[in-house]
């Protein structure tokens, strides 16, 4: 499923700077690529840092706080020869522009019978970051359900670089999401490309598969190391492509282990964890040695107080506990 060719790998060694480097490389290679958003010249969200200095006012454009306006304009620009990137800061902010994102951008290709494509890339932080419920949404389940959007959710620098590049080279609308507390997470960008449809597997054994997204994937990797020390071998499947869901990659892992824990920072109801669990059950029920366990946020908005916030978000310990139960 890898769509990208090998290229000079990035020297960026943190997650958001790796995204910024992927953007800069594409902007150098293709003058149709432009980036719009709020406060992107200053690079408040480090996804855009350095771009304005190199590419200037025409291609790196600070917008007013008009999410519907500039997302809709991005569609028009995409239809008329540009390849716009929109940095919308937080997926929480897509809600004020959901018509433009879902109903306009996400439907253009289908509703026009293929006359129009919408090569728009939307970058946004998704997940808890200490700013309370209106900034903390993990909106990826809604976006996965939109029906015309591709959704990527890198959790490390390597994924961030290669998946951002894949998004920019896609002729479809793609969202590239990242958990804000991972924005500065250290990590190298390796030489092996990832594309839309890929997941990243890190194996510590074949007792159980942990399917996890974003910050939960980072926590699952740590949990797997702890579990390995206890003698439980876990395979972490970082589901960095959420839509279209890479079904074969998910079931392949389950067939190796027979047990599944699915971890998501979204609310449990209709979460990505729910979709992944249902998919595993439908496609590989015969491989299951134990019931699938979902670990997600209870059905509440994300609270502000750090103590409450960390209480509702699945922790490394929550993941370890769930795996122990499934592996028992």
């Amino acid at each position, binding site marked *: 499923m890898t769509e990208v060719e090998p290229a000079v790998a990035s020297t960026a060694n943190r997650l958001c700077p790796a995204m910024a480097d992927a953007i800069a490389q594409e902007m150098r290679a293709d003058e149709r690529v432009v980036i719009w958003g709020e406060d992107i010249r200053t690079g408040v969200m480090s996804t855009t840092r350095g771009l304005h200095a190199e590419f200037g006012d025409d291609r790196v454009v600070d917008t007013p706080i008009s999410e519907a*306006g500039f997302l*809709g304009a991005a569609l028009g620009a995409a239809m008329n020869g540009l390849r716009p990137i929109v940095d919308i800061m937080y997926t929480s902010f897509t809600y004020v522009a959901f018509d433009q994102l879902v109903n306009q951008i996400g439907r253009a290709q289908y509703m026009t019978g293929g006359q129009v494509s919408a090569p728009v890339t939307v970058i946004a932080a998704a997940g808890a970051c200490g700013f309370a419920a209106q900034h903390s949404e993990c909106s990826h389940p809604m976006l996965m359900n939109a029906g015309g959007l591709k959704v990527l959710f890198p959790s490390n620098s390597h994924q961030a670089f290669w998946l951002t590049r894949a998004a920019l080279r896609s002729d479809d609308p793609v969202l590239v999401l990242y958990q804000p507390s991972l924005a500065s997470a250290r990590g190298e960008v390796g030489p092996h490309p990832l594309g839309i449809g890929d997941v990243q597997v890190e194996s510590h054994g074949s007792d159980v598969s942990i399917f996890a997204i974003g910050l939960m994937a980072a926590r699952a990797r740590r949990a797997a190391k702890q579990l390995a020390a206890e003698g439980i071998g876990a395979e972490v499947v970082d589901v960095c492509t959420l839509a279209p869901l890479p079904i074969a990659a998910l079931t392949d892992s389950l067939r190796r282990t027979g047990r599944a824990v699915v971890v998501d920072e979204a609310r449990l109801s209709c979460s990505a964890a729910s979709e992944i669990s249902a998919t595993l059950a439908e496609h590989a029920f015969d491989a299951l040695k134990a019931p699938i366990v979902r670990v997600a946020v209870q059905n509440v908005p994300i609270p502000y107080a750090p103590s409450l916030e960390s209480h509702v978000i699945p922790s490394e310990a929550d993941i370890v506990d769930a795996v122990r139960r499934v592996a028992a």
Partner: protein
Amino acid sequence: MVQRGELVKRRGLDWLQALIDVRVFEQQLVELHEQGSAVLGAVHLCIGQEAVAVGVAGDLAPGDQITVSHRGHGLMLARGLDPERMYAEIFGRATGYCGGKGGSMHIACPELGVAGANGIVGGGIPMALGLARAASQRGTDNVGVAIFGDGAANTGNLYETMNLAAVWRAPLILVCENNGYTEFTPARDVTAGPGIYTRAAGFGIPGVVADGEDVVDVNLAMAAALRRARAGDGPTLIECRTTRWRGHHEGDERYAGVYREAPDTSGDPIDRLTHELDQLGLDGSGERAAAQTRARTRLRNARDAALAAPEPELETAFTGVFVG
């Protein structure tokens, strides 16, 4: 300043045909509806408003892109779309512009400068801004045009777009087709202020009002806005005041007299242009009859061909969500 009489002499007969084409195209849909035909989904007609479509499209160049509302058949025809493929789309046929996936409210043909129609009131306004921005960024002198109704003038999309268009000095023309009704509600009951066009002032861009039942007046307003846009001087808002003769959509006759009065058809744009041509000694009345005959023949054939066209393959429902 173009002399009105000269303009009518030069282009009046073409415009008369264009107005009549739009009217007849839609009258044939009314006919189908009255026959109880099952081939129609929701259709929103612009009968009575044809002067806006023909006046707006008259001076557009190839490469200019427009976004239109759910009431957009007139603009599509005036832009040169094939009536047979439009009918086919409305009837949900494979040969329609969108292969039957869009229907009346969503006919598009970017190749001919109709980037899209919209089922969401105001939904296409920001898109037109992006079309305009891309046109100028690519170094062309093409423009983007959003045509929307009075209902859309009360959505935030218009204000977000006007602000950004003014900041960018984008080659954008915003055409509000004020037909007196926002869906099933008289516009005056839900719209504040002395006129929608006056709202442009807050953004420091020209706002003008045009007689939306006069193709010449619409064309002149549009020509001025196009000159401004192509010269790099930025956007214009034009409010075209017109009259919706039909309901919000075909089939809402049961509400006639409830939310709407009998339409005032005294400003019929076809009558007015015919009269003006007569006054100029160009035999408007005779030309009108001939144009009507041509339109009926051509459009009846188009409609019948579309009715005979095949349904889409069922498999297509599951394809074309993504390019890759």
